[in-house]
């Protein structure tokens, strides 16, 4: 099973909003409401920021929001801040034998 498809990079100015897409298939993103998003700063471990498409773990600001339509999930960062500059990965459940299918990753640059 191939990795989920994300844009290589997106950018925005402080205060703006950016949206990252995550495209899968009817066997993963389209089939299950188990899409999560991870933020990874350079040299650091990933951090969970969205799970089950649109839920926030404790401590994650609501500037981060998730959604899904068909085979594509999206992460929107509103009110972009300098600290949001990082790599972002989506991840979908794809069944018992492939419980985690990650996306290709998107670098967010704050101009």
């Amino acid at each position: 099973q191939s990795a989920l498809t994300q844009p290589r990079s997106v950018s925005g100015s402080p205060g703006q909003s950016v949206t990252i897409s995550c495209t899968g298939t009817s066997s993963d993103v389209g089939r299950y409401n188990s899409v999560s998003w991870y933020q990874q700063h350079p040299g650091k471990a990933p951090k969970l920021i969205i799970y089950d498409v649109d839920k926030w773990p404790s401590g994650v600001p609501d500037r981060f929001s998730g959604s899904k339509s068909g085979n594509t999930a999206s992460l929107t960062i509103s009110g972009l801040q300098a600290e949001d500059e990082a790599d972002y990965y989506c991840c979908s459940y794809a069944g018992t034998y492939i419980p985690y299918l990650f996306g290709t990753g998107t670098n967010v640059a704050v101009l």
Partner: protein
Amino acid sequence: EVQLEQSGAEVKKPGESLKISCTNSGYSVNNYWLGWVRQMPGKGLEWVALISLVGSDTRVSPSFEGRVTISADHSISTAYLQWSSLRVSDTAMYYCARRPAITASPFDSWGHGTLVTVSS
């Protein structure tokens, strides 16, 4: 405080064996599984394997089947990832991460990573 303490960086030669570890503390392992995620240099995240910290259930990604072995010592809440014969292409950062013992749960806490370098 939830802690996933991973073993230190390793430098190995092709063909050598290796076992890295991830010790869990600060929470009840009864309700969690532990996974391993690979990140090759400059690349994205790839799920490797998953293991229950209280039972014997395991899952290995088809992409890694036959290449790695996942195991656990429940008495010390530690999970392991093992190779019998390393390749240069195994060079990567390996993260351990926990997930609730509910199907399709996300990885909600991560270790700092173990860098594995395989070079002749």
